[in-house]
Structures are given as structure tokens and as C-alpha cells.
């Protein structure tokens, strides 16, 4: 798949022709994979489709609870949510095997949930309780349960991309059938680390999946001031497949990630997937997002990812109300438990800067997709 460098060509042949060839090779084209949608997606059984719905509902319900706890003054710091983007993180994580680590970003609570993080742990984390995921050292979306294969994000965007590449590199050299997945926003694509990670991943042909959550804004900055060309176009120029998908269609996202995973495990290298979606809230709770045109929000509201999946399930005769009610009950219960947890002991503030014992590698997470059963 690698194109010979210009050194391999006669010196008077410009590289142009080589890269032209590259353009025509299948792996270099940027086009959507054929997404098998419709009533009977071949890879998703009825339970899977219900599970995708339930994870999205749970994602939203936990964040809504977080918002109300925040407004009650119970959540310290700031608060960010992923409203409107639930399908991307849930669909992507659902395609991962138990041993595939995921690096979520600020809008990706669903990925944590799919991997097995409990609502109680998430809420306890928001509330700054040591019983949460980060022992109260971290807040809002900066967390991840490594014992479940979730690597919590670092604020600096997109620092987890090189890290995901390194994980995938290790899998490749140990010949393990695993891949890593990193999620990130359109804004993150302008940062140097993004480029270094993409290029290094392509050169090393590692089993990594990059999911670009293209919601058209980086905080207040619209795409037009972030880049001229959709970043998915860069994939071909790195020598990897670039794919665009409707980020609000959880089954479509699942399917492109599933295919990217198959390709990765078969030695086909990394894939860049651009999931087009919309951030329906402000950047954080402090941001009223008045810079977003109301019509744009209205258009996207009509394409709500949860409503879309709900409609599919209703058509299949699933009792979606019962699912939603069970989510509410679960979140209520988790909230009660999280609020009951003790606050951190100030004496612990300085412990654990270094690891004293063995370095324990990341653990395995849940993999609820029926394809792994």
C-alpha cells in the first residue's frame, strides 16, 4: 500500500505521477463506505439496536442530571455535555471488542457507558467524589476508567491521538487482534499533534481508528475559520482511507467503525471517519452559544439521533417507553448513591503522583455488540 518514495523512481520523474497513481488506488479515495442501513442491518440484531438506543438515552439522561446537579451547585468547576452527538460515540464504541481501548473526548460520555462505566461512577465523578472514576482529582469530562479500556482525555487537544497510535503500534508488534479508537472534534484537526499522529499511524500502518466528530464548531469558531477543506480529505494525503458518515445515525456510525476495525485487524491500517453532527448545547454550560444561528439548531434538532433510533425501534414494535423509564430509574438510583458518597479526604491530595507498585496495563471493557458473543 505504501507508495515508493521518489528515490525509487528515476530521478527525473516527478513525484506527481506517483501520487496521481496513489489517488486512483482504492485505499486513497475518500468516499463513504456502503452503509448497510434499513430495516434489517446485517450486523445488528434486535437487541443490539435496542442497546444502541438505550446507551444514547442513558448518555443524555446522565448529562441532563449532571446539568441539574450543576445548577444546584453540587457539581464543582465547569460542565460540558455532548447533547446531539450521542450517536457518534455510542455507535463507535459499540463496534469495539473488549480489548480495544477507546480515547473519548468531551462529548463522548456514551463511549464510557458502552465500555462498562457505571452511571453511578460518572455522577460521582461529576460530583467530585473519590468513589467516581478519577478519585476526585479530575472533573467534568476529563475522566476514563482504564480498567475498562477507557483512557481519559487530557485537555490539550488532541493529545490522545498520538497515544492511541502508540497503543495500536503495540498491538501490531505483539500481533494481537486489537485496535485503538480515538475520538476528537473538528477543531482538534488543526493542532500539530493531530498531524503527527495521522502521519505516524499511516507510516506504521497501525490498527487505529480516528473518529472526527465534525460538529462545525470549535467552541465559537465555525469551520470556515478552522479549515478550508473538510479534514476528511486529508486522509488520502496521509495514505489512509477517509470516510464520511452521518454522525447522528448510530447504526451508520457503528457500521463504518465496524468496517474500519475489520480493516485494522486485517492489517489494512488506520481509517479516518468524519461523523457529521451538531453540538446542540453551548461549548460548556457557561456558553449560551449565541454565535450559532437558530435555524441551524432547528434543522439539526429535527434530526435528533435519539429520535431517529427511537423511530426505528418503534417501527420494529419495541416498547421504547419502558426503556426510557428504566434509564430514568437507573439514573435516579445512581444519583442517590453518588450523592451519598463521601467527599474526598484532603489528606489524600498529594498521594499517587507516582506509581509505587507494578504498572498495570489497561484492562478489558465490556463489548455489548452481539458480534462479540
Amino acid at each position, binding site marked *: 500500500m505504501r507508495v515508493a518514495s521518489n528515490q525509487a523512481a528515476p530521478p527525473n520523474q516527478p513525484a506527481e505521477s506517483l501520487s496521481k497513481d496513489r489517488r486512483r488506488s482504492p485505499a486513497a479515495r475518500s468516499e463513504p463506505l456502503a452503509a448497510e442501513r434499513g430495516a434489517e442491518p446485517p450486523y445488528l440484531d434486535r437487541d443490539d439496536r435496542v442497546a444502541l438506543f438505550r446507551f444514547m438515552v442513558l448518555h443524555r439522561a446522565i448529562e441532563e442530571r449532571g446539568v441539574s446537579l450543576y445548577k444546584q451547585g453540587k457539581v*464543582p*468547576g*465547569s460542565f460540558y455535555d455532548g447533547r446531539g452527538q450521542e450517536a457518534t460515540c455510542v455507535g463507535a464504541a459499540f463496534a469495539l471488542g473488549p480489548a480495544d481501548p477507546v480515547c473519548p473526548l468531551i462529548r463522548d460520555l456514551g463511549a464510557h457507558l458502552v465500555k462498562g462505566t457505571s452511571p453511578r461512577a460518572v455522577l460521582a465523578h461529576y460530583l*467530585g*467524589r*473519590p468513589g467516581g472514576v*478519577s478519585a*476526585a*482529582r*479530575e*472533573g*467534568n469530562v*476529563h475522566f476514563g476508567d482504564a480498567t475498562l479500556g477507557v483512557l481519559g482525555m*487530557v*485537555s*490539550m*487537544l488532541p493529545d490522545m491521538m498520538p497515544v492511541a497510535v502508540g497503543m495500536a503500534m503495540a498491538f501490531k508488534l505483539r500481533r494481537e487482534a486489537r485496535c485503538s479508537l480515538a475520538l476528537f472534534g473538528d*477543531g*482538534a484537526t*488543526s*493542532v*500539530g499533534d493531530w498531524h503527527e499522529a495521522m502521519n505516524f499511524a499511516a507510516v506504521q500502518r497501525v490498527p487505529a481508528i480516528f473518529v472526527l466528530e465534525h460538529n462545525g464548531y*470549535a*467552541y*465559537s*469558531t465555525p469551520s470556515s*475559520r*478552522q*479549515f478550508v477543506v473538510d479534514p476528511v480529505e486529508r486522509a488520502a494525503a496521509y495514505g489512509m482511507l477517509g470516510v464520511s458518515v452521518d454522525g447522528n445515525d448510530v447504526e451508520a456510525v457503528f457500521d463504518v467503525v465496524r468496517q474500519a476495525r475489520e480493516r485494522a485487524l486485517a492489517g489494512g491500517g488506520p481509517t479516518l471517519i468524519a461523523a457529521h453532527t451538531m453540538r446542540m448545547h453551548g461549548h460548556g454550560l457557561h456558553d449560551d452559544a449565541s*454565535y450559532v444561528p437558530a435555524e441551524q439548531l432547528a434543522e439539526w434538532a429535527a434530526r435528533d439521533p435519539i429520535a431517529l433510533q427511537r423511530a426505528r425501534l418503534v417501527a420494529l414494535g419495541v416498547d421504547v417507553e419502558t426503556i426510557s423509564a428504566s434509564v430514568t430509574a437507573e439514573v435516579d438510583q445512581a444519583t442517590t448513591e453518588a450523592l451519598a458518597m463521601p*467527599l*474526598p*479526604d*484532603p*489528606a*489524600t*491530595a*498529594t498521594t499517587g*503522583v507516582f506509581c509505587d507498585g507494578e504498572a498495570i496495563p489497561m484492562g478489558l471493557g465490556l463489548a455489548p455488540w452481539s458480534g462479540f458473543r
Partner: protein
Amino acid sequence: MAQLSYLEAISDALRVAMGEDERVILLGEDIGVHGGAFKVTDGLLAEFGADRVIDTPICEEAIVGGAVGAAIVGMRPVCEMQFADFVACAFDQIVNVAGKLHYRLGVAVPIVVRLPSGGGFSGGPYHSQNPEAWFLHSPGLKVLAPSSAEDAKGLLLAAIADPNPVLFLEHKNLYRRVRGEVAEGSYETPFTARTVRDGDDLVVIAYGAMVHTALEAIEQLPDASIRLLDLRSLAPLDEDAILAAVRDCSKVVVVDEANYTCAMGAQVSSVIAERAFEWLEGPIVRVAAPDVPIPFAPALESAVLPSVERIRAACDELLAY
């Protein structure tokens, strides 16, 4: 004179500088339409236009590198890091390009990099850092850290006028908490220390938000005559003011919000230990954050950040020495 918050004073400095000097431009993420994450640049896009208030993609190296380029062809760029923490992503351009061009090649780099820094509001490990020591250890950079609204404006105006790269630490926890009389129009605050409060039993040396924490601590010790020195400028460092204070007071507490090891406080302490040893009547006591990332939960964060209590206890103990 107007009563302005620390944040308003910084905005005012930018407005005054842009109004006076066409060469002043602003670069940063979300500083235009949105007016910046903290609203420091609010209104400046409308006033000065998109040519001079430039919303960039997320690319800290290119923001600083771009500012360097604009500066060396005659502009006076002021960059905003959305949080000081992100300056780690612009580190190479600051340290290896901006800081070394004049010494190496005689090329002046008049840029300012604004760093909303510091903790105290559950920002967690990535929104609470005080990165000044990294730059103090890197030659060719000036580093300022005002504690009052008045100094914030005057130091920022002086930074913009300076022909060298200046890192400007604006403490987020002072933005709205601190207010003061601020002169209208243009004025420059010198890069020297300021005596906040006089005294001759002991001197507390601090800067930024810690000036306020120290002041509170000192006020709880009315029986002692405690001087408070606000460094204001960390590079250049006003060693004369430091040594004079030690000569007068003989006992020193040095306070840093930053992590302990190799912090500004370590440098101040070492200068005193070398050059004012004869005047010392007790150990040079340091109060700083321990070497841990700043934790999120309020109970943990306040266990880590230097507090009124810790500073008061340090003074108390040293006074009794």
C-alpha cells in the same frame, strides 16, 4: 480614574494599545466574535475589525510563531492562550524561536503572550497551572504577573511597548475578584517590585494571586510588623528590592502558587541565600503548591494551593525563630 476589575483593566489596556498603535493586533482562539473564553477581548472585534482581532484555528504553536513573524516585520502582536495551561502546546516557539532570536541574530521579537493562569475554582489539572517557571528558566523572555487592576493595565501596556517577547500571567482568580482605581488612557508600570505594605520584622515575597492571600495572612498577625513585597515582574527580577527588604526585615517567607520544585520561589530564595546571607536571622521559608497536579475537588484543591492559613503559620513560626 475609574474603578475597574482586574479583567476590565486588561481589556482596557488592549483597547488603549490598539487605539494608539495600529501595529497592535490580537491573535487567539475565540477572541473575536465570542470575545474570548473569559471575555477579555469582548467588543474589540467590533471596534477594531477582523484584520486586527484574529480568530485562529486551534494551533498554539502557529499562534505564537505567527505572532513572531508579524512582529519581526513590524507588528505588535498580542496572543491569547485560552488557558495558560495550553502554553505547553506553544512551548517550542516561545522558548526556541521568540526567546533566542535577538541574542542569536539581533532580531527583536516584540510579542506578548497572555496567559490566564492559576487555580482556585475547581479547574482541575489542566485549567489551574502556573507555568511561569518554565519561562523564567528560558533565556530571552520577560515574565510579568500583576496582582492588581492598576498594575495589570500598566504592565500590559508596558509589555506591548517592550521590544522583547513578554509572557503576561493574568490570574484567572483575580479577574473578577479584584478591583481598583485605574487611570484612564495610557501609562506604563515599571518592571520592578512594589511594596504593598511596610514592615520590618519579616518580609513576605509574593506575586499574582498570592499577594492577596499573603495580605490576608499578614492581616491576621497585627502584632508583627510584616512587609509584603509584590514582585510584579518575575523577569527581569528586581533583586535590589528583594535584597533591600531582606536587609530591613532579616526574615523571609517566599510564596508561590506554582509547584514547589524549581519555582520562582526557589530562585528568590537562592538569590537571598547567596547575596543576603549576612542579614538573615532565620531560614528562608517557602510556601508553595506541592509537586502535584492541581486536583479538581474543592477539598483537594484547597489542600494543595497555598492558603492564608499556611502563610500565616509560616510567618508565625518564623517570627518566633
